[in-house]
């Protein structure tokens, strides 16, 4: 079964037609990169996958998005439940003003988990999965703000992983990071693929080509091409994709 199956999705911000007839299938344990020039609709599409756009007034969507075969926009779906399965990491690290430990435990606590042993175990696991453990194991009770940008971003990834989602959505997770932190995040994505399905928005072509199995190229609200990443970066079908990946755009 497909993990994500978006079918004929159209999306409007009031009058503005931001996504035009997008259909995209994502298989389990794959990494899909969304690329395209600024304003083409990548973040809009990503947010649709865990209903983050619901919060924006005046928006409208047609078409459907299935998660493991279930329509996530069906009336009986609980958004909180959906977001436990489809987590998100944002462009800017946004730790809470809490300790490192509590940042990662947060999702578990709001989900009503009280078993402290379980929480502690899950926190440690998640921080390890996020390749952050060695750097924070001695300062779990310190404020998350005491971490570097790259560490904060991995903390946010750990926070997303703590609630055991199936899909992790990442919107430019490394855009604010130095090359070493970026490399760590990329390695991490590669590792996470074993257990999660990942959809990542990135402006960095090399990053898209390094981390993803498939790449979707968006332009002006349309999905121009969606194919194996190797194909997109060696011999894309569409001229417009070629112009974008080779940097001849515009």
């Amino acid at each position, binding site marked *: 079964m497909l993990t994500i199956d978006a079918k004929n999705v159209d999306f409007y911000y009031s009058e503005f037609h931001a996504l035009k007839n997008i259909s995209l299938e994502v298989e389990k344990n794959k990494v899909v990169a969304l690329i395209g020039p600024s304003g083409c609709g990548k973040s809009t599409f990503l947010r649709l996958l865990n209903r983050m756009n619901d919060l924006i007034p005046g928006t409208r969507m047609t078409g459907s998005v299935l998660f493991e075969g279930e329509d996530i926009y069906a009336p009986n779906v609980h958004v909180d439940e959906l977001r436990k399965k489809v987590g998100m990491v944002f462009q800017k690290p946004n730790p809470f003003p809490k300790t490192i430990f509590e940042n990662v435990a947060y999702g578990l606590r709001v989900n009503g988990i009280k078993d402290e042993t379980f929480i502690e175990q899950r926190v440690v696991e998640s921080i390890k999965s996020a390749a952050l453990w060695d750097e924070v194991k001695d300062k779990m009770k310190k404020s998350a703000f005491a971490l570097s940008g790259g560490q904060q971003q991995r903390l946010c990834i750990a926070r997303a992983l703590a609630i055991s989602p199936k899909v992790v959505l990442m919107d430019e997770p490394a855009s604010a990071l130095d090359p070493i932190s970026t490399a760590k995040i990329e390695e991490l994505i590669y590792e996470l693929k074993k257990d999660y399905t990942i959809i990542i928005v990135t402006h960095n072509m*090399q990053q898209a080509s390094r981390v993803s199995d498939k790449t979707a190229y968006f332009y002006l609200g349309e999905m121009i091409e969606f194919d194996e990443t190797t194909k997109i970066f*060696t*011999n894309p079908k569409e001229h417009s994709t070629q112009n974008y*990946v080779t940097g001849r755009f515009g």
Partner: protein
Amino acid sequence: MRHLEQELVSLRQDVIDMWRLVISQVSNAGEAILSFDKDLAAKVSLREKKVDAYELKIDGFCENIIALYQPVAIDLRFVLAVFKINSNLERIADFANGISHILVNNPSVILDAEVILDTRLQVMINQVNKMLAQGLEAFENEKSNFAAAIFSEDSQVDEINEKSVQVIADYIQKNPDRAYECLELIGIFRKLERIGDHCANIAEEIFFYIDAKVLKHSPKDKK
């Protein structure tokens, strides 16, 4: 124009310049052999170093572009193709030089007009010159179809080469005192045949670069 595009433009120009030099090396070597022109042969030998210098320059250029710009899609295919075309051109120039050397090193070699005619040496020389020029034309104009004929021409070159062996063997039986020159002649055919092979390799690279088609180790007639 972006910096990468400028780099690709000058890389392309270097390859074209090298290609023209190699074309003149091959045609001069052929002419030298056909007309026993030792001065022309010596000139080919002298210019061999220039070809080698181009090869090194283009190799370094490709390496830098890959390291600094990480080209993708058509740009990547272009750089990879150039990298291989470069080494094929250098090999071709080596063979042209080898042909010239036969004249330069053996001042006494005079080939009989009869055996030259019967083996179709001139046809073979014209053929490889034509293949080299077609390759360049395809590369310069980014039109792979200009290179399409090269594959069948390579087969013709192979055929002339094969038939020449029998002609030369017959000639040696009749003129045993000319055996040495005849062995040199076989060497020339062999080198021309190899030049044809390298032209076909280059044509494959042109199809890879322009059409993203991999023709290596596959029958070429279905294009």
